C-alpha cells in the first residue's frame, strides 16, 4: 500500500504522524518512508543514520554557438521564457526551464543538446532494521521541487508499504506526491486555518480520486467545527491526538512519541488498519 500524509496547512503535524506511523509499523514489518517535502525535509532529523546520497538532475539545454544561427525559433517556442536570443549569442535562464526538451526539437540548426543539471539530491538510509528512509532535498535557491519528488518516489519502486510525507499547500509538489497513492491521511488542527486548508486538501485528493481520512492533532477538545465538516463530507476521523506540552516537546527535540511512550504504538497500528480499509475501498 502506498499512503500519503498531507494537510494543506503547514505545521499541523504531518511529519509527526508519518514518522510515528512508520516507526510503529517497522516493529513488525518492512516499511519505506519517503520525505516528499523536499523544500524543507525533516524526517531525517527523527531517524539519524548514515545515508547514501545521489544527485537528482534534470536535462537542460546547451547551445552550440558555432552552429547556432540566432534565428530565435527556440525563444519563440519556449513557453516558460527560459531562452533569449541576441544577435550574437543565446541567454539561457535555468530557473525558468521545465526540461521539456522543446528547444532541442525545434532548433533548425541542430545547435541545442541537453546536459544534466543538478537540482537536488535523494538520500537512502536504514535507520531501523525494517525501516527504509528516502529523503528528497531540493538545492538551495532551486525552484523545481517536482523532479526531486518524482526521483524519491521512484527509489521506493514497488516496496510493499510506502508512507509519503507531503509538503504543505495544494499545488504541484502535493499533486506529485499524492499521484499514485492508494489512500491519504489529512492531518489537521481545530482552528479556522486548519479547517480552511483541510477543505482545500480534501478537494485536491478528490480530484485525484484518492480516498482520505482525517487525523486531528493538538486537540484542545474544541473540535466541533472539524467534526461537523468531516461528518458532512463523509470523512472518517481516524485518530485524535490531544494537545499536551510534553507531546509537543518530544517532537521539538526530534524524538518520537511512539519511542518515548510505547503505549501510543497501539493507536498508530489502529490508524494504519483504518488506512488499509480506506485504500481497499471498504
Amino acid at each position, binding site marked *: 500500500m502506498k499512503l500519503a500524509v498531507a494537510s494543506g496547512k503547514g505545521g499541523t503535524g504531518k511529519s509527526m504522524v508519518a514518522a510515528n506511523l512508520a516507526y510503529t509499523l517497522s516493529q513488525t514489518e518492512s516499511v519505506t518512508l519517503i520525505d516528499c517535502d523536499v523544500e524543507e525535509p525533516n524526517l531525517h532529523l527523527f531517524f539519524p543514520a548514515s545515508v547514501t546520497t545521489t544527485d537528482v538532475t534534470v536535462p537542460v539545454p546547451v547551445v552550440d554557438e558555432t552552429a547556432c544561427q540566432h534565428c530565435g525559433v527556440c525563444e519563440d517556442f519556449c513557453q516558460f521564457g527560459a531562452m533569449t536570443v541576441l544577435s550574437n549569442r543565446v541567454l539561457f535562464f535555468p530557473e525558468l526551464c521545465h526540461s*521539456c526538451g522543446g528547444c532541442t526539437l525545434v532548433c533548425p540548426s541542430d545547435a541545442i543538446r541537453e546536459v544534466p543539471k543538478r537540482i537536488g539530491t535523494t538520500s537512502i538510509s536504514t535507520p531501523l532494521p525494517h525501516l527504509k528512509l528516502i529523503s528528497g532535498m531540493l538545492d538551495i535557491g532551486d525552484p*523545481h521541487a517536482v523532479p526531486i519528488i518524482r526521483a524519491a518516489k521512484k527509489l521506493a519502486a514497488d516496496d510493499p508499504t510506502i508512507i509519503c510525507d507531503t509538503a504543505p499547500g495544494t*499545488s504541484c509538489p502535493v499533486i506529485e506526491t499524492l*499521484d499514485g497513492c492508494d489512500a491519504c491521511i489529512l492531518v489537521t488542527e481545530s482552528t479556522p486555518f486548519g479547517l*480552511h486548508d483541510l477543505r482545500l486538501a480534501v478537494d485536491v485528493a478528490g480530484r485525484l480520486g484518492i480516498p482520505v481520512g482525517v487525523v486531528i492533532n493538538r486537540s484542545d477538545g474544541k473540535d466541533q467545527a472539524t467534526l461537523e465538516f468531516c461528518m458532512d463530507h463523509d470523512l472518517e476521523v481516524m485518530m485524535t491526538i490531544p494537545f499536551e506540552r510534553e507531546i509537543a516537546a518530544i517532537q*521539538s527535540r526530534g524524538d518520537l512519541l511512539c519511542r518515548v511512550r510505547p503505549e501510543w504504538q497501539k493507536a498508530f497500528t489502529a490508524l494504519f488498519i483504518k488506512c488499509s480499509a480506506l485504500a481497499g475501498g471498504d
Partner: protein
Amino acid sequence: MIRIAVISGKGGTGKTMITAALAQLLPGSLVLADCDVDAANLELLLNPKIIRTEPFMGMKTAVIDPALCTQCGVCMEHCRFGAIEHDVDEAYRVHPIRCEGCAVCVHVCPAAAVTMQPRQTGVIMYSETEWGHLVHARLVPGAGNSGLLVHAVKKTAMEQDRNCDLFLIDGPPGTGCPLISTISGVDIVLVVTEPSVSGLHDLKRVVAVCRQFRPRILVAINRFDLEESLTETIQLWCNEEKIPVIGKIPFDPVVIESVRNGVPVTRTGTSPAAQAIQILESNLNEELRHYRDQRK
C-alpha cells in the same frame, strides 16, 4: 514603499498570526498581500470586504481534438510529464493537472490535432480591510503555477497602492518556486521560526535562499518557551549569522482563541503573546527607521 515579507521555511510557525498583528500595529499607510496562494489564511483574520475579483490565467495547457487525432501516440512519446493518457480503445487525452504547458505535443503532432488553450487556474481578489487594501488569491486546488500567481498578486498590490509606506506580505512555507517568487524584490524578510529541530533546520535553509536575494533578514521565535534550550540554540546561530532576533513570543492559548474569533491577537488586549508582538513591532519599526535613513 518598503516591502516586507513574513516567511518561515517550516509551515505552521505563526506567519499569518504575526502578519495580521503587524498590520494592526505598524504605523503609516499599508498594503497587504497573501502570497501563500495555495492555502491563503490571512483573510480569516482581517475580515476583508472584496472590492473586485479578476480571473488568473495560468499557463496554457494542451488539448487534443479527438476528431483530428489519428492515435499515432507520438505526443505521448515526447511528453516528459506523463500528461498524455490513452486507455485501450479510447482517444488520447491530456491530463490537465499533469500538463505543464510546454507545447511539445503541439509541435510533434503530425495531424495538427493538439492546440494550447488558456485555462483559468485561480482568482485574484482586491479587498478593503480596516488596516489597508489586501490582495489575496485562490488557486484552483491542484493547479500549478503558484509562483506565477504569487507574482501576479504582488504586482497588483504594488500597482494599485504604490504610494503606501509599507507593503506587508504573508508568505508561503518552503524554499521553492512560490517562496522565491515572494522574496524577489523584497527589502526586508522576517523569518518566523519555532524552537524545534525542524524549525531550526528549516530556518537555516530558508535563510540561505534569502541570502541569494540580499534583503535585510530578521528573525522572530514563536512559542519560544516550549523548548527554551532550542530557543537558545536558535539565538546563538542568529548571532553568528549576524541576524537580529527582533521578537520572542511565548506559547499562549489566547492565540488560538483569537484565530477562532477571526481577529488579530493584538486586538484582544494584553495577553502575553500580544505584549510580545508589540515589542516585536517596535523593534521592526526601529529597523524600518534605519532602512529609511540608509535610503536617504
